[in-house]
């Protein structure tokens, strides 16, 4: 059978795109997590599950 994707192509792809993809995503995630204005949203979220009421809002 003919090889559809050569091993070298795959290695090249992993070493270029794979690297960029991981670095970019890491940066995006860190920015999201540490964005100062997000602080309040996160605090609210972590407190939200401790509310006592047990009814849907509708």
């Amino acid at each position, binding site marked *: 059978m003919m090889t559809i994707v050569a091993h070298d192509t795959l290695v090249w792809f992993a070493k270029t795109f794979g690297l960029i993809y991981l670095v970019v*995503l890491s940066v995006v*995630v*860190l920015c999201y997590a*540490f964005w100062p204005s997000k602080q309040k949203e996160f605090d609210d979220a972590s407190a*939200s599950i401790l509310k006592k*009421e047990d*009814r849907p*809002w*509708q």
Partner: protein
Amino acid sequence: MLSKLTKGEREGGLIILLAMTVIGLVIAIAGRGDPISAHGFLIMLFSMAVAVPVMRHLFDPEPSRDRLDSYYDDPSKVGVVLTFAWGAFAMFVGDWVAWLLVEPNLTFSGAWSSFGRLRPVHTTGVIFGFGGNGLIATSFYVMQRTCRARLPDQLSPWFVLIGYNLFCLLAVSGYMLGITQSKEYAEPEWYADLWLVVVWIVYFVLYLRTLSRRQEPHIYVANWYYMAFIVVVAMLHIVNNLAVPVSLFGAKSHSLFAGVQDALTEWWYGHNAVAFFLTSGFLGMMYYYLPVRAGRPIFSYRMSIISFWGITFMYMWVGSHHLHYTALPQWVQTLGMTFSLVLLVPSWGSAANALLTLNGAWHKVRDDATLRFMMVAAVFYGLTTFEGSFMAIRSVNSLSHYTDWTVGHVHAGALGWVAMITFGALYASIPWLWKRERMYSPALVELHFWLALAGTAVYVFAMWNSGIIQGLMWRTYTENGNLAYTFIDSLVAMKPYYIARAIGGLLFLLGALAGCLNLFLTIRLAPGEAEAERAGSGPAYGRPSAAALQAGE
């Protein structure tokens, strides 16, 4: 329970069940002479058994609109019961398998009870039966509370829960009949796999529909973990099970992959099953139940987000650490090893986050066995991931691979982390779901905790010992360069550890049975429904944390 469904939902359910009965019958007849025929009958009988109560309630009046003022918890309740039932069954089989390794004659004469068939019954039963039902039941609970939205309809959650259990039944009964595609953790054949895809898509859509009804602007992080579990398991399941059936009404199929590609696909699946089935969903459980039970917000919400993305990205790449020293290209092995090491960071991020949340609530951990289950789970999660990253180093793996060390690692994760967090989450949910003040017997929860902890410790220490001894015996050479021990020598040396493991497993099983008893007593006898109702809308949070919550308000 059934009269809470609307007329349309009851009719819809019945149509699905009747259609499945017919499909089952067709498979049973057309597949005559093939093992698939037995599964046709199973599908038919299962669908009929579910259809009977639906028919009995078919002409009940429409439920009142009041139902929309509360969460829809019936599927979670059934899911909790199923979790305990599968747990007891599959852990019993696990202990049987453990005794088989001590005394191979403990089988019945039929092929169904041979080691090779019972072992996957154990693994599928615990991972999919016990773990999966626990995840489905708690996810329904958590998604509604965190979104403050009721499930969008009452039929699809039942479809997910019942359909999923049909899949588990097909899987487990299939192994006993000799039906398997021989891929570890993906043993069920093509038709069961296809059925699971349908169930899973409904599950995914249900989750999205609930999220879209939420009032909170931000989606609480536990939902991210549950969603990752659902999305990635779908992806893994579909790719790894790509196969061509030999015939339309035959059980046998052939994988689309071959050779080393097949091996890598399988372990890409296998390790991500660990990551997204046995870890991600259970982290979702932890991020909800642990703070709520402790009455304290999670220590660092930011850390939970970073851990989430860390785990999600990095786990994808580590499957190749299961294939060190194989035909897999060296660089792929190194890639898996490197990512496994980096993975320790987000893993410990979550474990530390859980433990730091408890900082300041240690008195509750001391008094409340339910919270203690979750605390111990976080510790074992930290331990197992550390061990895993260590075992992924190629030279360490040359010692651990093929030995009981792997089995020890598996059960440190499975018993210490997966089962402990599940029991903790269930003991927290049960009183809230059935509107009881607490579990019927806190003493039984306490007993379960100590049996589980003792069982895990005995199991894991036995396997570490035997694994390392095994590994060393296999690589000890004499002066002349011959192997010093035969394989049989190492087998004989294992026997005391296998006995210890089987006893540890028995303790763990007894704990689970104590849990079953307590569940039964709580549903039947526990006081508190009336009180909880009178107290108004609040969930009966269980004594220790309820008191703390009020104090903090």
